[in-house]
């Protein structure tokens, strides 16, 4: 896991979107958009490029036994975080937390707020 190449913000967002449960493609798009308040707008191309890479890296997997949602479309495919994926997401969040802490200790964030 330590050798995992760094996550791009978009990849991290996809992992975050799957953190609270499996989702299909469009649900991930929507979740990322809503969670970031529209700041990160993924398109289908980038999304599936990321999904392909996360699948290959073993950070997410496709759900074999599909949940019996109501009004579900048979063509949808569902993805979920793997154990590795969860660890990577946690590690990334911790890394960011440390960065934020450092920025605070340098009063960078406060300074930014005051401007």
């Amino acid at each position, binding site marked *: 896991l330590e050798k995992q190449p760094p996550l791009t913000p978009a990849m991290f967002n996809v992992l975050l979107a799957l953190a609270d449960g499996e989702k*299909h*493609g*469009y649900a991930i*798009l*929507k979740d990322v958009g809503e969670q970031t308040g529209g700041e990160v*707008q993924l*398109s*289908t*191309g*980038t*999304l*599936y*490029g990321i*999904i*392909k890479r996360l699948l290959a890296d073993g950070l997410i997997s496709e759900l074999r036994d599909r949940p019996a949602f109501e*009004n579900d*479309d*048979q*063509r*949808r*495919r569902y993805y979920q975080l793997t154990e590795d994926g969860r660890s990577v997401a946690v590690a990334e969040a911790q890394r960011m937390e440390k960065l934020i802490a450092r920025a605070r200790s340098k009063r960078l964030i406060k300074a930014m707020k005051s401007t």
Partner: protein
Amino acid sequence: MPYEPAAFSDRLYGAILRVLPFEFRKEFGSDMEQAFLEQRRDVERRSSFGSLLTMWWATIRDIFSMAPREHAMLLLHDSQYALRMMRKNAGYTFFAVVILGLGIGASTAMFSVVNAVMLKPLPYMQGNDLVLLNAQGRKAGIEALPFSPPEIKDYRERNHSLSALVESHSMMFTLFAKGNSQRVHAGVVSASYFDFFGIKPRLGRGFEASDERDGAPPVLLLSYEFWKEREGGDPSIVGKTFEMNDRPHVVIGVLPPIPQYPRENDIYMTTTSCPFRSSPRSVVDRNWRLMSVFGRLKPGVTLQHCGLDLSLIAARLERQYPDAYPHGLGYAMRTASLRDELVRGARPMLLLLLATASLVLLIACANVANLTQARMLRREKELTIRAALGAGSGRLLRQLVTENFILSLLAAVLGVALAFGGVRVLSVFMAHLTPRAREISIDPSVLLFSVVCAVVTAIVFGSIAALYSRNDLSASMREGASQTTLSRRRARLRSMLIVAQVAFSYVLLIGAGLTIRSFVHLQHVNPGFAPEQALAAGIDLNWSKYKTNAQIREVADRLLTSAQRQPGVVAAAVSSSYPLDPDALTMGAWKTSFQVYGAPALASEKLPITAVRAATPDYFRTLGIRILQGRAFNDSDRAESLPVAIVSKSIARHYWPRRNPIGQKVSVDGKNWITIAGVADDVKEFGLGEQAPDQIYVPMAAQPSVGSVLVRAVGDPSHLASEIRLAILAVDPQIAITRLQSLDQVRSDSVSAPRTVADLFGIFSALALIIAVTGLASMLALTVRQRTREIAIRMSLGASTSGVSRMVVGRGLLLVGSGAVAGLISSLVLTRFLSSLLFETSPTDVLTFVAITAVLLGTALFAAYIPARRAAGIDPQIALRSE
């Protein structure tokens, strides 16, 4: 969810997805379409038309920006896999790269020559607009008549098709500076000459119109090579004064390193600085012809139009000055593109050699296709497993194509490396064929050519193998699919490729055989003189020191005495030139028209032309030319005695076929008659492949003209070279020795062009033979391996080992035989294109065809022998048990 037809926008999205790699679409395509459909509906339901457009724009931009990355990643993955597979099959990779590399190398090297010599524009400003004016005496059989100053003036003033017209000629002069003297080639040119070619001096200034005025102080431009080598690249050379032709000449500049045409000169001067060109006589004498003339086409004027324009001027001149242009001369003007003129002699050979090299590449392709096929057999299991694991046939096909491309590119790298090595050798070879040889180099267009070669190669050999694998893969996956049909089809394809290789090689071998045989014929031509043990020194006298006949006669006597005095010299002579003299071949020989006494020249008839040679008495003995009738010259043939001449056998046969030529009279000026004292054997003066010319020899004492010193030695004449050099310089240290060679060397040099063609043809065809024969051997080996079981059964049923060997060899010979028959038929059609290059050799020379067929069959027999022995060595028990 109820069924609904796909909306237009969803179909459009599906279409856009096609820019993504097939594998990606296969994996995520429908999922993406689904996600997009939901996204679109959501936006349509909730937002404005503007947001819909924004979504579309973002989607399209997104897919187009990620597609190249996905393709690249796939290619990277394929390439990594390909390299892994190639490392695993190192032997196959090595052979394929070497064979294709040889083919690509041969083609690239030949293309570099064709590119430099025929395709690239001349290295002069708008070189394609430059024309060479070529005056001719058509009735007198004179192909190139130089121009006289009055003619140049006429053409310059009267033409309507040229924007500029410049002249040039070369002379040897002696240059003095600080007590040193050196002989130099001086180019005498119009002041606008270098502007005309677009050449700017590297140092100082170029010629200006004022430098060519009558009485202008003489100025010099130095060639780059002369400046570097003789003046040590002195940066302050401009302003230096040299003494030449009894006048001071000031250096005004240095030229850049450019290909000099029509010949390489050390220094350049304007026409008014040349004592000959500016002499009162030459300015008015229409017959004082010495100059080459070049023109630049006016914009929009075609070569044809220009030719017509100048021909009209020539016709008018002929009418206007009947004395200068006698009817028998047939004065005419030919206009040629300078670019074509420079490669006129080389074009057919170059195209032939390029075709030859391409054929080698084609053979290499066929060979590697076979290798690839054989490897596919071994990889069948791997490919089947991968197909079973879900790799589509398209995916596998692309994997194979990637492997082939990498293989071909590696081969191209090897080929370019070979071509780099070959180009130096080739430019030396090609210098015998064209003055543009020095421009041969590996430039970007040559590199592009080799890459194109590689790509085409990959497509040719790859598609054969890939097609085959695609068809077979599906078949072999159907369990128990008729394996026999399959292997039969494979064997047929492999056999066809072998037959093709053999056929192509056969054609090349025949071409090589014919050119080599023609060259051997040329080597065995009786030149009419005995070059063995003879040495020739080409010399040039300083004209300002030897102006009168008496002075020249005197120096000829001293040169002769000095040469005769050297130990080891059996005979010596001084003459105006000698047989196969390279300078006479390139710069033209001393030829003149002559009349036979008692055969009045009719005005309408052309006068016969003869080559003239002034020589001292021992000329014939020194060169080993037989005197057939009468006598050779002797010391009593002086200027004041009865003028005599010796004529060649061909003259005697032409003009006195049934009479004794001795005592007959001829004249070269129409006034003074010379009596024939002897008849000499015909000599191939101008080339071993040329007719011996009509030739008149005159005594040196009567018509002095010094151009060479010749000696016959007791042993190897090259040992005498330094003594002869000293002997000549002892007479006058200012005499320029332009060359010093044994006549054997001269003779060998005279056939260097056909030798070049024969050598290259030989190399290419040997390459082709080796490739084809190794291909045959490896294919037979594969056949034996595949048929081990069958052979073992045959042997256990009583087949003898020799019978088994015979079967394998017979199979090989059947293939080679079919290839040879195909090659024979193609050769009979194709060799006629060679006929212009062949000397006394028929394009269907039976001996060559028989010999080449024997070589081919012999080599094939040898190649088949190794796998045949392996087959005979099969132990049926072991072979059957291991199955």
